[in-house]
């Protein structure tokens, strides 16, 4: 266990990032190139993961899709991070009316199951990458803001914050220099686990036809198309699923590993 989940997750994530960056260089085929003589071919030496319903190389499409999925997950989690941290710091540190209004609003928002909220938002914006990112971002903000707030409430009562205040330090400076850095570990762990969730949500929405639209090689959309061919060519559905699972696994292991490293109290759980 010493090599641990953290290193394994980090290695996987670096691997996925490299694939996303190098994409077209390492893909054996053009992801949109059709070979009508090789439709729904099972895995072979020429096509490692086989071909799809119009003869496109699945391996190349998975590689090209890595960039899309990773980008959506990272961007939406980063946006949710900025908004969630801002709201959480404001509510937790300020307290009073600001806190009460924000918390009621966030609590209300949390009664909408996040995938349902995401679907509703996409129905209003339209099914495309920006709709997807907005939907995931909005549905992730409440829980993150609550988490940051809880941590800030804990920190706010500590002596060193009171000392900073007694020294006449101004609020923004206290929050940025003294409160935020001590909340960072909790936030980073949560963001990593959230990125895994974002991958699941993005591919689920792609599968439902509400995410990135075909013919873009998005993993979820690849499933959506594969369903019709489940009887004749199950390999078309297998590979995108493995890719999604592996990426989610990477984020989960990284997040859990980080928690074990940074928060020994949680290790027993």
């Amino acid at each position, binding site marked *: 266990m010493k090599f641990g989940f953290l290193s394994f997750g980090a290695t996987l994530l670096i691997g996925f990032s490299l694939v996303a960056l190098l994409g077209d260089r390492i893909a054996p085929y053009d992801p949109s190139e059709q070979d009508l003589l090789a439709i729904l071919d099972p895995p072979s030496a020429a096509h490692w993961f086989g071909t799809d319903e119009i003869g496109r190389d699945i391996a190349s499409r998975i590689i090209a899709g890595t960039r899309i999925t990773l980008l959506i997950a990272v961007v939406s989690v980063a946006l949710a991070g900025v908004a969630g941290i801002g709201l959480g710091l404001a509510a937790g540190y300020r307290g009073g009316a600001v806190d009460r209004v924000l918390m009621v609003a966030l609590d209300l928002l949390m009664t909408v199951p996040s995938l349902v909220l995401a679907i509703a938002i996409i129905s209003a914006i339209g099914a495309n990458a920006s709709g997807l990112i907005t939907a995931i971002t*909005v549905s992730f903000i409440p829980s993150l803001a609550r988490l940051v707030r809880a941590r800030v409430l804990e920190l706010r009562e500590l002596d060193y914050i009171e000392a900073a205040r007694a020294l006449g330090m101004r609020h923004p400076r206290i929050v940025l220099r003294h409160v935020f850095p001590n909340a960072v570990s909790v936030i980073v762990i949560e963001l990593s686990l959230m990125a895994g969730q974002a991958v699941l949500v993005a591919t689920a929405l792609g599968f439902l036809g509400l995410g990135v639209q075909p013919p873009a090689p998005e993993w979820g959309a690849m499933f959506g198309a594969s369903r019709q061919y489940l009887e004749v060519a199950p390999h078309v559905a297998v590979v995108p699923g493995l890719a999604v699972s592996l990426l989610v696994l990477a984020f989960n292991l990284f997040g859990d590993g980080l928690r074990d490293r940074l928060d020994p109290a949680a290790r*027993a759980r």
Partner: protein
Amino acid sequence: MLSLVLWRLALIPLTVLGVVTILFLIFKAVPGDEATMVAGATATQAEIDVVRHQLGLDRPLFVQYADRVLGLARGDLGYSATFRGNPLPRILERVPATLLLTASAILLTVAAGIPAGILAASWRGRWPDIAVSGGVVALLAVPNFWLGMMLMALFSVRLGWLPSIGLTGPASLVMPTVALAARLIALVGRLVRGTVIEEQRKDYVRTAYAKGLATPRVLYRHVLRNALVPIVTVVGLQTGYLLGGSVVVERLFAWPGIGDLLLTAVGLRDFTLVQGITILFVVGFLLINLLVEILYRLINPRLR
């Protein structure tokens, strides 16, 4: 207890009002114009304006909001183009199928997650523990729709044991339930393992063993009872996943529940229906949470 339940039930309409308000604000704030979407990509500006007027979207925001809230108070979700009127009865028709699916997912979670966790805890560090812990990590990474699809490929297509789509009888419940419950089983399994290991170190367990009680009796009568509280908490916290996940699973298995209807509504650009179903999901969420809280009080004597 009764007063708590009544009080919480009374709060539901207020919560729904709050959610409707926030959803209204979000829908007005996000980019995208409802009238343009309803009219379709090829519509001219004049056509869009006609649609806008028909939907009442050219009225002041406050009037639109008041209209929505007053309608809701009467049980009227607004005009749904799909059902040519108030869609509430048609949505309610679909509720039992979703209830059946989510309830059986919770049952399976308890029935599989608790034994798996106990098994892992009693064989800590040995192969049953490694198998369960590995299964947990895997199940938390696998998308539910893919799991469902793989089950379908194996049990319907290859083996022909289970019907692949629809609600046709007890057998048709198996795959959707497993697909939906997988994540929860993993969470509960992991939690039970951790809690049992933690509880076993405590004094009362040593006392129980010292009295000469057999291991199963200590586990089930003493340890598990204390582990129930966090289990109920986790299941409660996953209500959102359960309801959201049901949408995806219902679509995959053509399950006639409200999640499937939600996706149909999105496809038809029927925003009244989308928002109506969203509100119903909120009511479901609140009711499940109330149920969880009642359970929580029943099993935790400290809160009685």
